[in-house]
């Protein structure tokens, strides 16, 4: 095992964490989609590095799936979607951005504390990054909570899936191939359904603001 590859994986992990914060603070939807594509690219980079360093062949395949699905296909669908829906503009956040960032930092500390005792059991070269993966999951979660428009929520959801995928390569050498294929299929189908859904929501409410989706409450 090459110590340099370990460093490279750590670098990619740091990039992922930075992107997660950038997404949290980003107001424009177009930039958000670019960030999502970058996140996918960083994921491909780290997966390929782990594959190269350890000689695990199936990781190359999973890197290829990620490349096709998360760097090319999903961003393309999202771009088409926002063009057709004509929602490029600023996103209102429910909590102001500095506060969100502070909450994000607390989440990162929490994630590292949670992951520290278990990451020592990992044999993967990327074991130090489990904490980062968990932090990215929580940050995507935070992003979903703080956004009031439907499209950013979807991007938050997809970025959470990216982070989980990163967790799988950092704790272990990736999930078995059949499971990864299944997950990729679910994500793709889910994205298509969400796209259809967004159109239906717009048709019904003339807006993608999910404040309109708060009618069903207990009396």
């Amino acid at each position, binding site marked *: 095992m090459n110590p340099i590859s370990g460093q490279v994986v750590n670098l990619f992990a740091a990039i992922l964490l930075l992107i997660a914060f950038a997404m949290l603070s980003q107001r424009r939807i177009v930039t958000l989609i670019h960030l999502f594509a970058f996140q996918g690219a960083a994921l491909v980079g780290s997966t390929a590095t782990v594959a190269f360093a350890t000689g*695990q062949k199936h990781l190359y395949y999973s890197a290829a799936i990620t490349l096709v699905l998360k760097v090319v296909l999903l961003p393309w669908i999202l771009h088409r979607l926002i063009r057709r829906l004509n929602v490029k503009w600023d996103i209102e956040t429910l909590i102001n951005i500095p506060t969100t960032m502070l909450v994000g930092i607390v989440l990162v500390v929490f994630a590292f504390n*949670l992951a520290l*005792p*278990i990451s020592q*059991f*990992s*044999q993967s070269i990327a074991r130090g990054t489990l904490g980062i993966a*968990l932090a990215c*999951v929580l940050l995507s*979660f935070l992003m*979903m909570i703080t956004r009031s428009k*439907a499209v950013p*929520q979807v991007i938050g*959801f997809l970025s*959470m*899936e990216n982070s*989980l995928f990163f*967790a*799988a390569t950092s*704790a*272990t*050498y990736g*999930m*078995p*191939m*059949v*499971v990864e294929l*299944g*997950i990729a*299929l*679910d994500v793709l*189908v*889910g994205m298509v*359904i*969400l796209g259809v*859904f967004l159109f*239906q*929501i717009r048709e*019904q*409410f003339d807006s993608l603001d*999910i404040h*309109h*989706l*708060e*009618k*069903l409450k*207990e*009396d």
Partner: protein
Amino acid sequence: MEALAALLAVPLLGGLLLWALGERESAPEANSLFSLGTLLASLVLTAQVVSEGPVMGIYEQFFVDPLNVFLVTLTAFVAFTTSLFSRPYMRIERDKGRMTPGRLRLYHSMYQVFTFTMLLALTTNNMGILWVAMEAATLATVLLVSVYRTPASLEAAWKYFILCGVGIAQALFGTILLYFAAERVLGPEGNALLWTHLDVVKHELEPAIMSLAFVFLLVGYGTKVGLVPLHNWLPDAHAEGPTPISAVLSGLLLNVALYSVIRCKVLADGALGSRFAGNMMMGFGLLSVVVAAFFPMRQRDIKRMFAYSSIEHMGLMTFAFGMGGPVANFAGLLHMTVHSLVKSAIFFAVGHAVQKAGTQVMEDIRGLMKASPTVGWGLMLGTLAILGMPPFGVFASEFLILTTAMSIHPWATPILLVALGVAFAAVFGRVQPMVFGDSRLPRLQHQPALMPVFLHLGLGLMLGLYIPPYLATWYKQAARLLG
């Protein structure tokens, strides 16, 4: 092996065919026919498991033992009877203009796909595929919940998608951690997610990883079970989707999600050697029972009210499995069965009652007994059964759960009793005026499907009075597997 393949192939092909052929007058019958095929395959599979023991298939990716074969049969059975109920129900909806041919095509196709995903989740041996199947079930039902395209149904489906999506993402993280723990023992080849392999080495799995994994798995799949405080999607999805879907959501999907949790619990128990997993489940279960018991009295919508009742019953089962031990597990499995049967029967009756009254608001549904005695009796008897009146099966299982709680965790018994009492008063108080009294409700254009209602209630009654010996053996075997 062939039966297993048929069990999965029939609904999958059915879904594709119903989509490919488009909407025709005979689509509801074709839908029932595919469900009947699935049911027959499940019966053959059951016979195999009973006579030859657990069945493995396709590179060990599929595994059927006494625990899941009973859920497979239950799922296939309720899916079949629901498809019978949905025939007149959907014809009436179409005549009312709520369902267009395009929507009916989506509905029938997704109904079969949904059955497929549930059966896949139940029969797979691979914990990763289990996750994939649960996510696919969510996707299929999202489309079914939003099929009316009303603002409320879109909102319900969006909420369902986001909440269950996030929830199930937690379960994926739990699955990754599970794989992480397993890989250290079983090596990185594909076997490390196979439940049968994990079960053999469960005592060697690293406890620190497994406890964290179980928390994530419980929260993730627990969202789909509808455990409080993760239950928010459930009443909306039940109330706004078509009624046959409410019936299969309550009767089947929640069971499948709980099944995933108990499979994980078996592994966590082995690895931790403590009551950690059981205690977590008891906590969530008790909270769900108590919170859900206080909601029905505030509801105006009949389907929302019964959705809360489902949360309450799922909580009770989670509590029973959390207690563990042969009696509590037996009671939990029995409760799963009778709850599925009775709750889907109630939704069938509710579906026709709502179609008659043209509203889901309970104040506007009056005098069902006069307008249509069978619907009225179905709703009344179903309500009594689900509230735990003897001699129905729910009484037997609740009695077993309460007496076990009394001997192991006496503190929990009064809480459970109060919650069940409150739920009884609220639900019975609401249903009674709907059933009795004067009526001005019109007739339905199509003969309502009441055979499934009384078939389910009859089975629920039978299980309360007499459990056939082979069924009892089967429950006992399954309960033993759970430890």
